[in-house]
């Protein structure tokens, strides 16, 4: 057993840390106020090659394995989560489908421009009628000659405003339920594609979740991603692939919160001494540390298992679930430790508190993760010798 990162990963992570802390972190207040990522930061992120994290080297990316990706995501988690989400959604659910399921021609066409960040990727599964129950989608794709005509809408689509390439799930055969769904690669310039309203959210400012409308949108048949009828399975695969990465981002945010707390508890004096001297504060910090350490171990084990090509359905759900719930607990404790200032916008703590809240909801709610874990437990029992479990 070896818990160390390769030298490559250490160097990359150091490079990302420097950029994130010197540039993005300095822009965090601006992102929060203007609800957008400054052009300058966006351009620097491109120059850094961050948009190519998960894209193979032959298509101009870095081709990092999951452990490497998680190490970078951990660093990205240590700053404004809106920025983290832009990069996270692009390098995760926004491009993984094409990397894992795309044909050679699709990869050649899309990945090089996505690796540089010229084309931003997004993933469009959710609809008003299809959230946790994604198979209940209404968006319909009908084949006409060598094209598909898509009608319907999506909502809450991250990176939708700046996105160029969308992995879209739509029903090709309504008779077949979940097995009648197909994934498509959709470009924003396709006729009939329209971006609707940008949702006003509780947090994640700078990251835009939008409605998408498809009105007789024409998609050439070579843009079917994977096999027809496999869209639901594809979507689950893409989401499962992103879970370790999300856990790593949450890990980074928790570490940053602990760092803020450690600065504050020695600086802030009440009752004639630093609040660190209060045992309740010490114990809160100890609990935060315990959860961070547990999350770190869990995250990198799932990442490592993924790189070993092991089945990680259960473990990835555990990491997503634990990571997002830990983040919420840590953010809550951090606000408490900071007292009144923890509630104020002039300080970053309340921002993390709001941004933490989405993590138990998107990319599969906590309840859905628990369902996945339980169904995996049942599967294991069924596979073992125990008879009678159906």
């Amino acid at each position, binding site marked *: 057993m070896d818990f160390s990162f390769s030298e*490559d990963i250490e*160097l*990359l992570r150091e*490079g*990302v840390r*420097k*950029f994130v802390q010197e*540039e993005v972190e300095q822009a965090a207040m601006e992102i929060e106020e203007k609800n957008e990522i400054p052009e300058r930061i966006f351009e*620097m992120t491109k*120059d*850094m*090659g*961050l948009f*190519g*994290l998960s894209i193979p080297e032959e298509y101009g990316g*870095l081709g990092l394995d999951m452990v490497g990706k998680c190490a970078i995501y951990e660093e990205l988690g240590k700053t404004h989560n809106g920025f983290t989400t832009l990069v996270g959604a692009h390098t995760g659910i926004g491009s993984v489908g094409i990397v894992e399921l795309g044909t050679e021609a699709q990869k050649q066409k899309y990945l090089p421009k996505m690796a540089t960040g010229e084309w931003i990727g997004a993933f469009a599964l959710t609809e008003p009628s299809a959230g946790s129950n994604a198979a209940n989608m209404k968006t319909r794709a009908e084949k006409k000659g060598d094209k598909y005509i898509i009608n319907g809408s999506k909502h809450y689509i991250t990176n939708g405003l700046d996105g160029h390439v969308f992995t879209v799930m739509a029903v090709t055969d309504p008779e077949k339920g979940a097995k009648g769904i197909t994934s498509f690669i959709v470009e924003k310039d396709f006729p009939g594609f329209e971006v609707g309203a940008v949702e006003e959210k509780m947090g994640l400012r700078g990251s835009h979740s939008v409605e998408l409308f498809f009105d007789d949108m024409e998609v050439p048949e070579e843009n079917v991603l994977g096999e027809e009828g496999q869209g639901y399975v594809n979507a689950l695969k893409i989401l499962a692939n992103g879970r370790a990465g999300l856990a790593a981002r949450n890990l980074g945010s928790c570490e940053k919160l602990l760092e803020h707390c450690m600065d504050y508890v020695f600086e802030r004096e009440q009752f004639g001494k630093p609040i660190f001297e209060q045992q309740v504060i010490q114990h809160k910090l100890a609990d935060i540390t315990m959860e961070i350490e547990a999350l770190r171990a869990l995250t990198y084990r799932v990442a490592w298992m993924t790189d070993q090509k092991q089945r990680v359905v259960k473990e990835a759900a555990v990491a997503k679930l634990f990571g997002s719930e830990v983040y919420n607990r840590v953010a809550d404790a951090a606000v408490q430790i900071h007292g009144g200032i923890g509630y104020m916008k002039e300080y970053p703590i309340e921002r993390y508190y709001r941004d933490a809240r989405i993590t138990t909801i998107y990319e599969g709610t906590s309840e859905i993760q628990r369902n996945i874990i339980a169904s995996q437990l049942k599967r294991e029992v069924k596979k073992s010798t125990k008879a009678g479990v159906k």
Partner: protein
Amino acid sequence: MNIFVIMKRTFDTEEKIAVNDEQIEEEGAEFIINPYDEYAVEEAINLREEHGGEVTVVTVGEEESEKQLRNALAMGADKAVLINTEDDLEDGDQFTTVKILEAFFEEKEVGIILAGNVAIDEASGQVGPRLAERLDIPYVTTITSINVDGKTVQIERDVEGDVEKVETYLPLLVTCQQGLNEPRYPSLPGIMKAKKKPLEELELDDLDLEEDDVEAKTKTVDIFLPPEKEAGKVLEGEVDDQVTELVALLRNEAKVL
């Protein structure tokens, strides 16, 4: 064009610095490329992009300096040279460094050498100009803009906030000042590539130098941190009295008037 950058590994003065036994405590200190040398690396890369050629970064240092050289390679330099004095020298001064660099450049065909204006650790600002003197080439310090056209070079330099325009020619040594450019962050692909770029390691022997040849001409007698800042003074009373008191303090205590 053969573009050289002379650069130095130094501690990060934005981090806490401790002095122990008249030496700066290395443990716990963060080490970086001297920030002025970073301007030099950035400008070297820009010059290469414009005029072609090759960027070589050179440092006189120790084994640990490899990290800063790799950083410069990750930014985009082509080759690195580490002149490692770890086994040969206890300590040295600007004379030592210049003597070593002079030996290194003796055989080289130089287009331009870029250096930092000063190193933020000792801030002597001597190495660049002294090296140019030894190599018998022109030098311009504290540059904020450079334009090479054939052999002719147009430079703007910072003179305590004013701008001086200088015309000179290659081969040339310049020292770089803040404002010259904004150094890039090494890109992630750049960081990966840097590992595979050539890094040559030399010792005094390889430059036909003996320890005696480079022996320091000066001795550092003491190093100490500046005194801690004292708490500010709050003046009270009528505004007129406060102003009178302030002026008196500025004149007699602070001695700035």
